[in-house]
């Protein structure tokens, strides 16, 4: 059954092949060309395109490997002089590479679903009908992971390679759940070397491994384990960064990886704390009758991911340092709680979710996709308690909705809204909404009118020429209140349990 689930999901992805793709498609095509045509030493300093590689080295190697295959499909896509090149073969190859690498994600979700259900079995007292329940639980968790609509929209419409990265994350989590901490550390380090956004989750890993692995029986500190873990992390990182250190490129690599020149918020504000802050700023501006600045923002094209800064006029401007400090400060309580807890891996997963959420709330230049960092681990917990379950149903829907503005082409309107509706009714039919209270339900229902207002009414009333930025602002404000609420509620639940 489960394997036929994968076939069905893969078929769905194949059907999405001719969908709209964003500039990320060109970004990744350009990386294929860069890694194929240029020597290693120039990968991070190539200037032939505005899209220089800004992922860690393992991802560059991954693109290099893909490019070797791409050479058989369409050689022209590997030329660094072809800008915005998108032949049918290129589209097919790139889309297909996402679909194929997603099998890592299937493997990870299978492993994780099995180990979390096994873990729940050992904590629960044995029931008679346990066998039935566990099989269904594994299936449902696997289904919710592999058919995650946000991931589907981001990877297979918008175009990115998040699937297999989350697969690696899930493999690493599954090893922690099974108590195989060294393996988990290896996988997580590999993941960090693919995409450094997962650094947001690193504090939870660090605290958990330090407290519940390096301290034997909770009292005696075993140095040897810490050294082993350190060796693992260092050796994996050395392999990936080694060639660049050798070439003296390391500073250039880091400049690419941490671009603080970008603004506080992305062109379309991710629904986090700063979206609320920006809205408050604009609100204050409107009160001061200063419309000019809003007009200036109208020209901002939200489809481009390029640098553009957003100056606050009324409220004080935010620097990267402030966001960094806020993130750390708000992570500390949950890390302390993890330190104090008995070594239950489920607590670790919850802390992982909170780390993801907190950094999403306060991080510098966060993308809306980063909400998946919290949603994917949270999926594992839907059967552990009603609180986790209600939080999952709410956050997963908000996360799906929050990527809608990325897919703004007319053909994608039905795709995205139908996928959301199917997702909601699946969750409804499996009774996932029972645990929500009235306000939360009302909040989720209000997403419907919001979608109609921003996507349909706005076009019918021809407001899209006059105020193109307002629907986006409305969406990110609305979603950020939801995420903010979830963050507070889940945080309190975690601290007070």
């Amino acid at each position, binding site marked *: 059954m489960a394997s036929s689930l994968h076939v069905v999901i893969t*078929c769905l992805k194949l059907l999405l092949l001719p969908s709209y793709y964003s500039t990320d498609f060109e970004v990744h095509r350009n990386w294929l060309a860069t890694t194929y045509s240029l020597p290693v030493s120039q990968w991070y300093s190539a200037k032939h395109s505005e899209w220089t590689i800004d992922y860690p080295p393992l991802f560059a190697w991954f693109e290099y490997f893909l490019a070797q295959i791409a050479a058989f499909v369409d050689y022209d896509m590997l030329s660094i002089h072809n800008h915005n090149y998108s032949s049918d073969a290129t589209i097919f190859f790139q889309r297909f590479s996402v679909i194929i690498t997603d099998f890592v994600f299937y493997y990870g979700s299978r492993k994780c679903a099995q180990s979390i259900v096994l873990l729940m079995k050992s904590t629960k007292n044995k029931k008679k009908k346990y066998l039935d329940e566990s099989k269904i639980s594994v299936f449902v968790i696997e289904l919710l992971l592999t058919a995650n609509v946000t991931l589907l929209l981001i990877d297979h419409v918008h175009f990115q390679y998040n699937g297999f990265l989350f697969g690696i994350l899930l493999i690493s989590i599954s090893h922690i759940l099974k108590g195989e901490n060294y393996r988990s550390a290896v996988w997580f380090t590999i993941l960090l070397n693919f995409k450094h956004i997962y650094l947001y989750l690193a504090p939870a890993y660090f605290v958990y491994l330090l407290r519940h692995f390096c301290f034997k029986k909770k009292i005696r500190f075993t140095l040897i384990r810490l050294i082993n873990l350190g060796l693992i992390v260092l050796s994996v990182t050395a392999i990936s960064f080694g060639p660049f250190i050798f070439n003296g490129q390391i500073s250039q690599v880091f400049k690419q990886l941490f671009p603080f020149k970008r603004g506080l918020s992305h062109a379309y504000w991710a629904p986090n704390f700063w979206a609320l802050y920006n809205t408050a700023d604009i609100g204050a501006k409107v009160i001061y009758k200063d419309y000019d600045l809003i007009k200036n923002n109208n020209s901002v094209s939200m489809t481009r991911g390029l640098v553009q800064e957003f100056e606050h006029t009324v409220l004080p401007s935010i620097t990267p340092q402030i966001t960094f400090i806020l993130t750390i400060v708000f992570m500390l309580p949950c890390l302390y709680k993890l330190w104090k807890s008995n070594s239950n891996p489920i607590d670790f997963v919850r802390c992982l979710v909170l780390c993801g959420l907190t950094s999403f709330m306060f991080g510098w230049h966060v993308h809306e996709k980063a909400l998946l960092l919290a949603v994917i681990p949270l999926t594992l917990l839907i059967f552990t308690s009603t609180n986790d379950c209600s939080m999952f149903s709410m956050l997963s829907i908000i996360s799906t909705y929050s990527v809608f503005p990325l897919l703004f082409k007319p053909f994608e309107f039905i795709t995205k809204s*139908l996928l959301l509706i199917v997702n909601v009714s699946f969750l409804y039919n499996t009774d996932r909404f029972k645990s929500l209270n009235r306000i939360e339900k009302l909040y989720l229902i209000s997403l419907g009118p919001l979608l109609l207002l921003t996507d349909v009414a706005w076009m019918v009333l021809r407001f899209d020429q006059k105020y193109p930025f307002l629907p986006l602002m409305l969406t990110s404000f609305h979603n950020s209140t939801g995420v903010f609420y979830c963050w507070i509620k889940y945080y309190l639940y975690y601290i007070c349990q």
Partner: protein
Amino acid sequence: MSLYCDTMIYKNLIPIYLKKVFNEKLILMIAVLFRWFVSLHDYSGKSKTPMYGDYEAQRHWMEVTISLPTTQWYFNSSDNDLLYWGLDYPPLTAYHSYLNGLVFKKILPESVQLNTSRGFESKFHKLLMRYSVLIVDLLIFIPAVYWFFRQFFKIKNNNQLSQTMIIALTLLYPGIILIDYGHFQYNCVSLGLFVASVASMFANKTILTCILFSMALNYKQMELYHALPFFFYYIGFVYEIYKKRSFFKALKTLSILVLSVTITFLLLWLPFISDPKQMFQVIHRIFPLERGVFEDKVSNIWCLINVLYKLRDINNQTMATICLLTTLISVLPTCLDLLKNPSKIKFLLSLINCSLSFFLFSFQVHEKSILLVAIPVLMYAPQNAFVCTWFLSLTTFSMLPLLIRDNLLIPFISLSLIYFIVYNNIEKLMLQNKNTSKLHLLRNLSLLGCVILTFCTLTLKPPQKYPHLWPLFISVYSCVHFFLFLIYFNFSQLMLNIPKKKLY
């Protein structure tokens, strides 16, 4: 025994769970989702000058119908070149094009400009066209399917499938999705009207049945494939009334039937009946004898015989007569049986048999006409899910050459795989018959043949001498299957014993 039951349940745990989760509403949304996903793909004749394909034909009809007066729709003129996708469907299609054209004129006027808009293509136009199919599908076909199965399950209760399952199998059937949303046609209108007419027959609403079926006939003349069972069912029906009640009751029913059909026809043909020249021109356009006995590679008998003996040498008039005679002979048993026992389940089987006979033996058959067989088979599927889904897989497969030409290979493979998996999970929940394993083996072998042929078509180059080798193999392979299915369905209709009191 109880242990066996337990293990059976344990094995099918997930299908049982899924059955609870997937209710009719969710099925509807998923069906619409798949329809939309196929819409993203290419349509027939995309950017293929000078003739394009069915997509352009539909657009051209909008252009013609909104720009010219009704009297000129079917006539050749300087503004209406009949050789370039001239209107060759009955009036209701023309009215539908007219309505669509009005909307298009409002939103995208340059797409329906007379003469200048030929071969108009744009992303936005494609979106509007896809919406136009989705809307009529949501308004006609999908409600009709729901209505039919609601009525069906009121009458028959020894079904193998539950109502939700068969609705899922019907709405996810790849053939109609691929043709309507990929290739581009409005089959959902004529087939939807047809399904609705059968549903209203099951609900014993005679007048409504006549009106709906006349409308279906007036949307696409191919609905004639289904006309004979309606005719013989109602003749048998009237005769039963005459025997059981009185002559006058029977006469009254008969006159109601005739009147409702005639009035519907009159209303729909209103702009054309004033002038006999108009009427004959429309009829001439609808039944074009000058075209060949089949087009491209169709999985019917004539295409099969054509391999051995070139039928194109025979003149069209003679060929049409031969087709007519063979078709009549092949539909005779099923029609006579229906006349003798006009029961609803026999009526469904007769619909399958007649339409399949027409597909295999009649004149001027398109490969898409297999949909006219597939829909009755779906309607009969709750009674014999195994054979019906086997048949349905082959119907989709028989259209493969067409779908490859339209660049719809990926949706074809995806939807067929999904359909197979959905059916397999449903099968686990059905009451298992004792000795189906041999039949299963046979079915799997036949489907494996399809897979191998698909694979060959995609990878192996045909020899220079026979460039159409693989399409020919596909049509011969499906034709043999269809012929055997025809015998099977005829057999099951004739062997079906209906207790006298349950007749209608």
